């Protein structure tokens, strides 16, 4: 029996010829990641267990992104704890304020992750790097501590669902609309414990930013990982940035999939996930008269350069609707810099939006855009659970940057193709 792409990467990292779905393995890790929320818990566990050194300082990444620049004294203490640990162990990939970005926008951009890697991160959206053809999955802080100490992690080899993409996306549609459509189709536990392997001729029409966005939200379908094959677009993206040599794995032709789902990209429409689950999807065109109080454009899902460009193309020369706050958060310092250079920041400010330095902040209800009771936000983020962005009686609608920006101008949820 052949192996899926994910199974091949896991077999190689476990030193095995082949693996089967359900098999428990120990695999070597190429990168172990944590942030300012999950790393302190990992450091406590690491110390409590008596470990005094990390397995490889070049294979650990610590990114301060959730509550930085520090939102309060306690957050400052957590950042300080991460900083001291990173300095003590000379962690190569430590990103503090001024260098940092939202981790899943930052690590691919900086070339820290590459094709063929086996990666764990103490953040659920670590599945993002599957876009580069890596096996990458979210874990907890104890797994991060164990990974930092030993360079290994245990995995149950996942089975997979294959998504065969065909056709091309229409204008105003992007990777976000694809993944929201998929989650609406299979549900928030539709890929529980499984890999989501994206394949087919339609892949070639998707940019790296689209693919990163699609893999980012694999966890929202319960998946262990999302993964794309490596093609010329991936190679071009990686060639100027990756520190390590990419290793290309391909699924076997006779690989076994639990389910095969065909997605016609040309039929994807601007899609919105209504409160309070990412699976509650509706075409944006069907949502009429839903008034919004806030718009958020950014996050590890949609804070990349193409997302900023989309927002710019819609907002330039326009005004944010009365009584709407529009918060734009470029994902990394490099993206922020490019937004400044291209004149996007000026256009955003002229439209009446605010632009922040990179942070996860409002996406998880941390700071920089918390909602009051009864308020409604359309956001390019990844979760719309009860209380996710603030008060338990607030509401979050998930959408693409195009839909969010078009809605910011009208003050109502708006299909960008009709704007």
């Amino acid at each position: 029996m052949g192996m899926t792409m994910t199974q091949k990467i896991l077999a190689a990292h476990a030193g095995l010829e082949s693996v089967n779905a359900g098999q428990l393995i120990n695999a070597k890790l190429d990168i172990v990641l944590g942030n300012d929320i999950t790393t302190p818990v990992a450091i406590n566990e690491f110390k409590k267990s008596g470990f005094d050194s990390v397995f490889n300082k070049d294979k650990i990444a610590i990114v301060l992104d959730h509550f930085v620049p520090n939102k309060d004294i306690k957050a400052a203490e957590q950042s300080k704890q991460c900083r001291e640990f990173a300095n003590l162990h000379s962690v190569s990939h430590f990103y503090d304020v001024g260098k940092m970005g939202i981790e899943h926008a930052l690590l691919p951009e900086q070339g820290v992750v590459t094709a063929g890697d086996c990666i764990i991160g103490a953040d659920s959206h670590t599945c993002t790097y599957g876009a580069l053809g890596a096996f990458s999955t979210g874990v907890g802080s104890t797994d991060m501590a164990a990974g930092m100490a030993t360079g290994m992690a245990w995995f149950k080899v996942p089975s997979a669902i294959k998504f065969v993409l065909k056709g091309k996306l229409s204008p105003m549609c992007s990777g976000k609309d694809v993944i929201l459509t998929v989650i609406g189709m299979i549900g928030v536990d539709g890929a529980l414990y499984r890999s989501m392997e994206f394949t087919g001729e339609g892949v070639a029409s998707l940019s790296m930013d689209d693919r990163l966005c699609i893999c980012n939200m694999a966890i929202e379908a319960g998946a262990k990982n999302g993964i794309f094959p490596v093609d010329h677009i991936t190679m071009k993206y990686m060639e100027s940035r990756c520190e390590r040599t990419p290793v290309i794995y391909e699924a076997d032709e006779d690989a076994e999939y639990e389910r095969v789902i065909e997605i016609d990209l040309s039929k994807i429409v601007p899609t919105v996930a209504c409160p309070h689950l990412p699976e509650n999807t509706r075409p944006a065109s069907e949502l009429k008269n839903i008034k919004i109080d806030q718009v958020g454009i950014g996050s590890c899902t949609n804070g990349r350069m193409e997302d900023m460009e989309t927002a710019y193309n819609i907002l330039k020369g326009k005004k944010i609707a009365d009584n709407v706050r529009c918060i734009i958060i470029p994902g990394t310092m490099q993206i922020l810099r490019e937004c400044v250079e291209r004149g996007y920041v000026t256009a955003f400010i002229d439209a009446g939006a605010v632009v922040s330095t990179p942070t996860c902040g409002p996406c998880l209800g941390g700071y920089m855009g918390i909602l009051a009771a009864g308020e409604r936000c359309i956001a390019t983020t990844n979760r719309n659970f009860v209380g996710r962005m603030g008060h338990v009686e607030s509401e979050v609608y998930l959408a693409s940057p195009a839909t969010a920006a078009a809605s910011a101008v009208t003050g109502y949820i708006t299909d960008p193709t009709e704007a």
Partner: protein
Amino acid sequence: METKGRAFKYPDNVDTDVIIPARYLNTSDAKELAKHCMEDIDDTYVSRVQKGDVMVAGWNFGCGSSREHAPLVIKTCGTGCVIAKSFARIFYRNAINIGMPILECETAAEEISDGDEVKVDFDTGVITNITTGKTYKAEPFPPFIQNIIQKGGLLASLKEGK
């Protein structure tokens, strides 16, 4: 090992944001975090739960964020066990890694009512609803995972293996 207590029933897709809202994640102090356990889905949980009580939920319990703070607060406020129809994978992993007992059992999760007296035997996977007299058998953990639990969590098992 076993636990005995009252059942607290919750629906499908209980996410980590309602188990421990991110606004409290500016600390890693388990006792302080535990004051807010389940706050956004049941703000009476912390005041009502007694040591050994059992959380009973539907499909996909613990979905969302990878925050280990979620199983940690459930454990810290005295909950003896979580029984669910299924668990989100990161929550499942985290619970095992920190030694928070969890069991997957669809029929038990379906049939146990809020307030029932429940006993759970972790070695055999047998769940007894003392109120109704019915018993259920949960899927046992594979030996690899049982070993982690017996050693008291992932790091303890690694230290022992060194």
